[in-house]
């Protein structure tokens, strides 16, 4: 079974966001694989270790900088990579169209991706890819079993946990709690350098979303801070909760 994993390079989640010329500045920012995608890569590798997956192809859309994300996934254990060269201003629609075209050419049986990217937080691209390819999809999974042409997925649904079955080929997006991604070994990093990475141009389509303005939220200012004995602290905090916040006590 051929598995494709979609990855995106994002800012480190500990990064402080600053603006430059009305855009988010990437100066001095440490870039990582989107944590949700990293989990998808690990999930694919585990499927290969179980003998379910035979080949893992990792794909990203964007600038040459995305090559680092591909190399990291290859060092973890993916077999080869595809970089879909695309303007970094592409929206979710344009990215989904570009990725789906490249995925279709690979004819996979399973497409994995993180359910959301830690940067734009849009959580659209995997589902859009499924629609373009005409595949079923399941989002926010914490487990997957493949057997008899079906993928049985545990998902974090609203208000509980659901087990959803779909026929493959399918698109499945991961929740971070699915697994604990491995660190690439030194051997893996060396091998990754020799693994093939193809570069293709994105299908050109217009965005459906126009960015009007990017801003930073108003900085929260520090309020009252009390350093005193626990009983004084607790009493004053209780007064504040009752009189300022006006909490209801059950």
């Amino acid at each position, binding site marked *: 079974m051929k598995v494709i994993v979609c990855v995106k390079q994002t800012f480190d989640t500990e990064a402080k966001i600053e603006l430059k010329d009305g855009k988010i500045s990437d100066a001095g920012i440490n870039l990582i694989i989107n944590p*949700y995608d990293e989990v998808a890569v690990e999930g694919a590798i585990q499927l290969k270790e179980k003998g379910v997956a035979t080949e893992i192809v990792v794909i990203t859309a964007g600038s040459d900088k995305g090559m680092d994300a591909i190399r990291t996934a290859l060092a973890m254990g993916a077999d080869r990579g595809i970089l879909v060269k695309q303007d970094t201003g592409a929206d979710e629609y344009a990215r989904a169209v570009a990725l789906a075209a490249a995925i279709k050419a690979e004819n996979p049986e399973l497409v994995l991706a993180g359910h959301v990217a830690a*940067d734009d937080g849009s959580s659209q691209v995997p589902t859009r890819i499924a629609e373009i390819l005409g595949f079923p999809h399941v989002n926010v999974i914490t487990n997957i079993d493949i057997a008899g042409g079906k993928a049985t997925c545990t998902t974090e649904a609203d208000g509980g946990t*659901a087990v959803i079955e779909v026929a493959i080929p399918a698109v499945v997006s991961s929740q971070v709690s699915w697994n604990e991604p491995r660190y690439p070994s030194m051997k893996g990093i060396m091998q990754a350098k020799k693994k093939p990475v193809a570069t293709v141009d994105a299908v050109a389509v217009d965005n459906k979303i126009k960015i009007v303005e*990017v*801003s930073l939220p108003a900085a929260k200012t520090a309020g009252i801070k009390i350093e005193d004995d626990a009983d004084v602290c607790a009493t004053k905090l209780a007064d504040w909760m*009752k009189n300022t916040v006006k909490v209801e006590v059950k």
Partner: protein
Amino acid sequence: MAGTWVFVEQKDGNIRKVTFEMLSELKKGGDEVSAVVFGKGVEGLAPELAKFGADKVYVADDAIFASYNTGAFVAQMAAMIKEFSPNALLFAHSFNGRDMASRLAQKLDAGLATDAVAADISAGKGIFTRSIYAGKALAKVEVTGSPVLATIRPGVWEVGSTAGAGAVVKAAVAATAGDVYQVEKSFAATVSARPDLAEAAVVVSGGRGCKGPDGIKLVEQLADLLGAAVGGSRASIDSGWLGHELQVGQTGKVVLPNLYVACGISGAIQHLAGMSSSKFIAAINTDTEAPIFNVSDFGVVSDLFKVIPILVSELKK
């Protein structure tokens, strides 16, 4: 053109609060506001939807909609959009909302603004403020084309009291068994007497300073007294003291309660991204230098193991 639609989030006839928030907010504008509900035996929900602003209630009632499945719901909505041509359609930014909206948007070759915290919809144009980088930045975006699609974060709007006429429009059932591609084998509801983290008015969270299950018990005790949801920082999730679904922060949930109480949480950027938009923030931490105090309205530098029991008894007075 048929105004703005709100897709109703309901399970077993219980409508989620975010649906009322969207109806109420849209009712403030001049355009027609409609609620769209899919389910089995759901026509009776119309008066409740009217109470919060729905001028019309579109109902698709059929066994195929008894529980959420993307394929049938998207097929139905696409058919109804074709028939009634709404200007805009809003979903909750929930598991089902973003799942359905994303697939629908692609089916319609349309743009979609997810996780919006503000909206300006008029004359078929939609401009939304989206929270990006888990709230560390805001992007104002225009969804071009028609209809305008967006998912709205729960809790950003108030539930109002302006009613609409609530005229029921029964929609023809367009979804067929062939549209269903997901089979729900089982569903285990989260058994909790506490409110949902994403919608709670008060959230009490525990972090590394809780030191273990005993500290978390104190957090839970305070939460239950305040009718609050319990949350946690990455440290308490990674240590296994709380389930992942309770993580607040960039790789967890973003919360917007009236009051957020951070217990033993230092305030890493990752965590602050998920909670610093709360209306009131209280913090209990032994480290006076903890970054959580930079965003707190009321901070106490003290040991949570001593403070919480006294706080609980003071609040009970």
